[in-house]
Structures are given as C-alpha cells and as structure tokens.
C-alpha cells in the first residue's frame, strides 16, 4: 500500500523477516506435535523433535544376543544384527552396563570361558564359543550408535486400529462424530426458520427478540451446567447423547440466529416480494428462495458449530460422559491420557493429532466461509 506514490518502502525486508518469524513461532508448536507423532517412543524420549531429521548418536538400550547357532570350524557361532535399520553406525560398544563403551567397532572382546564377541560398525555381531551355548544366558550388548532419521506409522496403528488398546481413540472418534453431526445440523435447521421470521416477517415484539438474542450471545455456558443437568435428570434424559445435542443446540442458537438473520436481512427485498405476489407462501419462500441464497451464511455457521462441538470438552464432560466410559469423546480421552500417560509422548502426540486432524481439514477446505462468518459474527 506504500507503493501508491511510486516509492518502494525500504522496510520491505524487515516486513518479510518479521512475518516469517511470526509464522514460524505460530507453526512451531503444532509442527512439534506432528513430527513427534511419527517417531518411536525411544526417539522421542532421547532427543528433541527438532533433531528428528538429523542422524543421532545415542546409547541404544541393551540387546541380548540371540539367534540360531551354527557350528563353524569347531566353534559355535551366532550371528545377528543389533538394528533393523541397515545404515546405523556403531561408534562404541560393551557387554556390561558399567562399561557400555569399552570396545571399538570391529574389535573382538574376550568374554569368559573362551567366548568371543565382536560387533561391526553396521551393527552386525558375531558370538563365537568353543562349546555350545544352547541353554545358557547369552551376553547383552550395550552400544552407542548413530541412527539415521526414522519415521513410523506404528503410533497411529496402535491408537486407531487396535481394539484392545485402552488408550485407543477409535471409539472416542466415533462418539465425537455422533455428538458433532446432529449438534451441527439441528441448530442450523431451527435457527434458519427463526432467523427468517426475525428478518422478514412482521409481528409485535420482533425488535425485543432480536435484542434478546444479542444478549444471550455472551451468556457464559458455565451458568447452564447445573440447572440443565438437574432438568435433564428430572425429565429423564439423564446423561447421554440426546441431552448433549440439546445442550449444544441451545448454546449454538444465539450465534446461529444472529449470523443468519444479519445475512437474510441483506437479501434483496424485490425477490421476496415478487414471490409473494406470485402467490408463494412463507414456507415456500423460505425453502425455495431464502435457504439457497443463504448458503454462505449457513456454511459459516456450520463450520463454527462443527469446530466448537468437535473441540468441546466441558459440555461433553457434564452432559454426556457417565461412569461406564462407553461414551467418552476425544477431548476427554486426551485429558485422561495427559493424566495417566503424561510422559508417553508417542501416545499423547498421536492421540492429540488424530483429534486435531479433522478440524484442520475442515479449516483448510472451508477457510473462506469461516472468515466470512467471523467478519459477520463479531458484534459490531
């Protein structure tokens, strides 16, 4: 905008750099979680996610020698590999936990009873013994090795597709979906009719109702928890999906009505009056003209409500989740994992990312409508 009079701002570089720093700061935390969800538990525990792409030199957990025994030249030999990855580089190794870096790669260590052990640089080891080692405890190998970057889908497999896994997210995923979809669609249907009435029908008390909706827009839902829980119990709904949908519907309605009414008021009056002259009823005008024209506003609200219900914790905690644990949602599951699996980042990161992935997809696919809704929805 500074180019209007033809001078290029000397600040351009500063602008680029500060923006890049800002974006990096905002992206970094999410990126950390994303990268971590593809690393193994060992890797996460021993190095920061930012070094995931570089080769890391670290002490590997002890590995016990194992494998088939072969007789070669009168000696009993066991050959095997320390690592699955073929490009690991061993820099030192040992056979006791007190001296884990006693030997160079390629060196031959003399163990007790004439047994020798050597570990090559690529992790291949050879154990050779004058007598058969069958049935005896084989030595352990401690190694310090540089392992190349490695990424895995195992975390996702364990958390999504293993039904026996109590940390699993698949049930919570479907429960969240079950909460979210009706809780998104029902308020839209109800609010669209109400918004039409508030925008285009004449009746006493209309202005008052609109003011009431604006007022309810900011009422904290914390106030509703106890009275509604009491009400649900008295009516017999108790804790369950029905109550959760109703609660989400009630809490989402003010914004829905407000957004949709503002949009519908802006539709051209001529179209509606022409339709009336042609003999269309209000119901027909609403379904045939208003609804299709209001699509952008409907989409905006749908995204809001979807994100809000998908990401919600409090409403589900109060109205849905009972002691049976069958109706847990993803947010609750993650909070639970934070408590019980605080240090197991491979589980936490993966679970969190599964719950984040869907909203992110919706966000990037429908950002246009989200922005439009935000601009219309912030009370001016």
């Amino acid at each position, binding site marked *: 905008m500074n180019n209007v009079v033809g001078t290029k701002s000397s600040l351009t570089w500063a602008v680029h750099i500060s923006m890049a720093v800002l974006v990096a700061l905002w992206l970094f935390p999410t990126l950390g979680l994303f990268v971590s969800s593809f690393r193994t538990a060992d890797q996460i525990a021993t190095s920061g996610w930012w070094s995931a792409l570089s080769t890391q030199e670290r002490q590997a957990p002890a590995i016990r020698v194992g494998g088939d025994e072969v007789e070669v030249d009168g000696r009993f030999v066991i050959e095997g590999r320390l690592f699955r990855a073929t490009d690991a580089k061993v820099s030192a190794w040992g056979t006791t936990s007190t001296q884990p870096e006693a030997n160079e790669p390629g060196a031959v260590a003399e163990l007790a009873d004439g047994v020798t052990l050597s570990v090559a640089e690529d992790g291949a080891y050879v154990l050779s013994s004058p007598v058969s080692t069958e049935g005896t405890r084989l030595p352990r190998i401690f190694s310090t090795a540089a392992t190349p970057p490695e990424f895995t889908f195992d975390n996702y497999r364990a958390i999504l597709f293993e039904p026996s896994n109590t940390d699993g997210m698949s049930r919570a995923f479907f429960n969240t979906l079950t909460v979210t979809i009706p809780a998104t*669609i029902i308020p839209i249907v109800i609010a669209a009719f109400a918004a039409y009435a508030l925008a285009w029908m004449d009746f006493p008390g209309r202005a008052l*109702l609109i003011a009431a909706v604006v007022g309810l827009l900011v009422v904290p839902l914390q106030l509703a928890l*106890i009275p509604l829980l009491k009400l649900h119990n008295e009516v017999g709904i108790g804790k369950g999906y029905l109550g959760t949908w109703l609660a989400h519907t009630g809490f989402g309605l003010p914004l829905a009505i407000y957004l949709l009414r503002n949009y519908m008021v802006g539709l051209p009056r001529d179209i509606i009056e022409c339709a009336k002259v042609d003999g269309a009823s209000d119901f027909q005008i609403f379904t045939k003209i208003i609804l299709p024209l209001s699509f952008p506003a409907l989409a905006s609200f749908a995204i809001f409500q979807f994100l809000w219900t998908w990401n919600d914790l409090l409403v589900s905690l109060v109205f849905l989740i009972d002691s049976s644990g069958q109706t847990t949602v993803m947010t609750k599951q993650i909070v639970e994992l934070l408590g019980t699996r605080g240090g197991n980042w491979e589980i936490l990161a993966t679970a969190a990312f599964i719950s984040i992935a869907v909203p992110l997809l919706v*966000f990037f696919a429908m950002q246009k409508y989200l922005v439009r809704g935000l601009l219309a929805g912030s009370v001016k």
Partner: protein
Amino acid sequence: MSPALQGLITIIIGVGGCVAYFYFSNLFLDKVLYPPSGPNAGRNINRANMIRPWLFLAPAMIALSVYLAYPVVETLRLSLTQRVPGGGYQWVGFDNYIKMSGEPKFWEALRNNMLWLIVVPAMSTAFGLLAAQLSDRIRWGNLAKSLIFMPMAISFVGAAVIWKLVYDTRPADQEQIGIMNAVWLAFEGGPVSVLFLKILPVLGLLGFAAAVGMVAWVFVRPMLRPSGPVGAGTIPLRLLVGAAAVWLIYMSLRSAIGLIGADLPYGVPQTWLTIPFWNSFFLMIVLVWIQTGFAMVILSAALRGVPEDTIEAAIVDGANPFQIFFKIKVPQIMGTIVVVWTTITIVVLKVFDIVFAMSNGQWETQVLANYMYDKLFRANDWGVGSAAAMVIMLLVTPILIWNVYNARKEMR
C-alpha cells in the same frame, strides 16, 4: 450395535424430527386450522400469517429460554440456597458468597482471571494487528495468514497437549525434548543471556508500563479539566481504567525490578508450569496463540477498509510508515479493535479447558471457570459453584449491555 450405526440412526431421527416439525406444522396451519379457501378465506389467511412467525420461532425460543435464559435465573436462585441433606433446598441468603469470599482459592482465581483479562486480549490484539499489517504488504501474505489463523481450528485440549510438549521437562542429565527447556539450557549466564533474559524483558516491561500509562492518561485526562466534555455516566468506567492501569504499572515495575535482581538458575531445566505467578503466563500464551488468528482476520479486513485517500494524503505530507500505521490507520479502525477486544474478553472469561488440561488449577493457576467446575463436580457444593458462576456472569454483564445497546442503536 456398532457406535457408528447407532450414531447414524440417531442423527436421522434427530434431524428428521426437526424438519418434520416445520413441514407438518405449516401443513397443519394451512390445510386444517385456517385453510385459505371456503367462506372465511381472507380472515383465515390473515390469522395464519399472524401465527406463522411464532410457528417458525417456537423451537428456537423454547431452546433459548430453556437452555440459556432459565439457567441464568436458576443459577441465581441456587447461589442463594443450600442443599439440605436428604433432598430439598434451603434459603441461605448470601451465605454462599460469604463462604466463597473466605476461600483463598477464590481470590487466587479472581486475581488470575483479571491477569488473563488484561494480558490475553491485549497480546492477541497486538499480535493480530501486527500480523494483519505485515501480511497485507507481502505476496505470500495469504499463506502466512492461513498459518497464523490455523490454531483457531485446534481444540483447547489439543492446544494444551501441543504446549505441554513445548514446556516439557526432563531431568538435568537427559536431553531436553521440550523446546522451552532446550532454549533455556542454551543460556549459560554470559552477556548474551543477560541481554536476552534481563535487558530485553525489562525494556519490554517498561514499554508495557508506558503504554498502559498512556492509555490510562487518555481515559483519565478529561476528568481533570473542570469543564471537560465528560458525561457523568462514564466516570466510573474512567476511574476503573485508571485503577486497573495503576495496578498494572505497579505489577510490571515490580516484575522488572525483581527480574534485574533475580539470580536466574542457568543450566537447570525448569518445570515451567510449577513456577508460581509466571506459570499463569505460560498458560495465557496458549490462548494468545489461538486467538491471535481471530484478531488478525478481523483487523485485516478493517485495515483494508481504511480509505486509500487518507493514506495517500499522509504519504504526500511526508509521513513515514510508522506514522501512517499509528496515526492514520489505527485511529480509523478503533471501533473494530474494541470489537475484537471484547470478543476475546468473553472467550477469556469462559476459559476452562486449557487450565483444566494443563495444570488443573494447581500451583496458583486457578481461574474462575475451573474453580466453579471444581466446586460443582468435585466438591459437589452447588451453592458456592453457582455463586462462582454468577461472578462470571457479573463480569460478562457490562459487555452484554453494551452489545444490546449497540444492536438496538443499529436497528433504528
């Protein structure tokens, strides 16, 4: 039955029920109750048209009154009563409020909430404004905006996990996997550390204090002139802003002095979420991270709406980019900044998930919403819980009145 199938069926019943209500109630009105035919056709059409708005509004009004209006009244009633063992309620007047005000945890929550109320909207708006202004001037601005906006889609709980990884702590002899500690351990007490951890933060705090002072001065100054254009109704607001500013300046100066004198534990990994007072700020960063995108989107649209000719005039008059931004653009979007500020304020007042998931109010990070949840569902004390909810409602009320007032003004 699999949960997916069960969900699908309930979805069809729920949504179908809604649509069916509207369709059949209209059908009933037009075909059975007041058919637009026969001897009374005209009267019937009029009557049907009088009823129809209420038909359209009925579900929404019922839902709104049951799920939002009634709870406000009911919570107020509950906050003045106490459960009697064996069932029933007993009127206790303001006992719950008195009991609550005797609890140090409540005052801790209130104090933290005040800090949240100031820091989060201020930082989100400031960063949002910065991002909006910068991204409008570069070619990859839209991509940058998307990325900064992205945390809006992430749940508070997801954000809590993301930031817990950032704040993660390992014992000193292991490699740190939280980026905060990794950066922290890179400082070893040399001149660079002094620059980044003492001089720059102190300058930042002093700058913040100065900015607060300036804002407060703008609010308070009209009252000092004997015949200034001050409406009597604004005096409480002005005094409130002044008092808040004095407190903030005191706090930031105290922190600055404390920081200069502090003996920072270099080389020792910190458990960031257990450092009293500062840990609240580490939690606030999470909400700032989420809300900045919102502020940026709204402010960016407002910045684009600033008339081009005012900027051109300023350039012709020789204004530099900073002057254009602070003296031409910002004053013209002041209204939008206020809207963004109040919207984020409401979010902050309700903040629950972040504290619940990250610290659960331990180590002096309690906030009102989580305090209320504790009282309601852990201590099972509905009276005090409702009283805490009413405090939140009380804090929201000024914004509520202001919004309704503006909406009515706009409609006239």
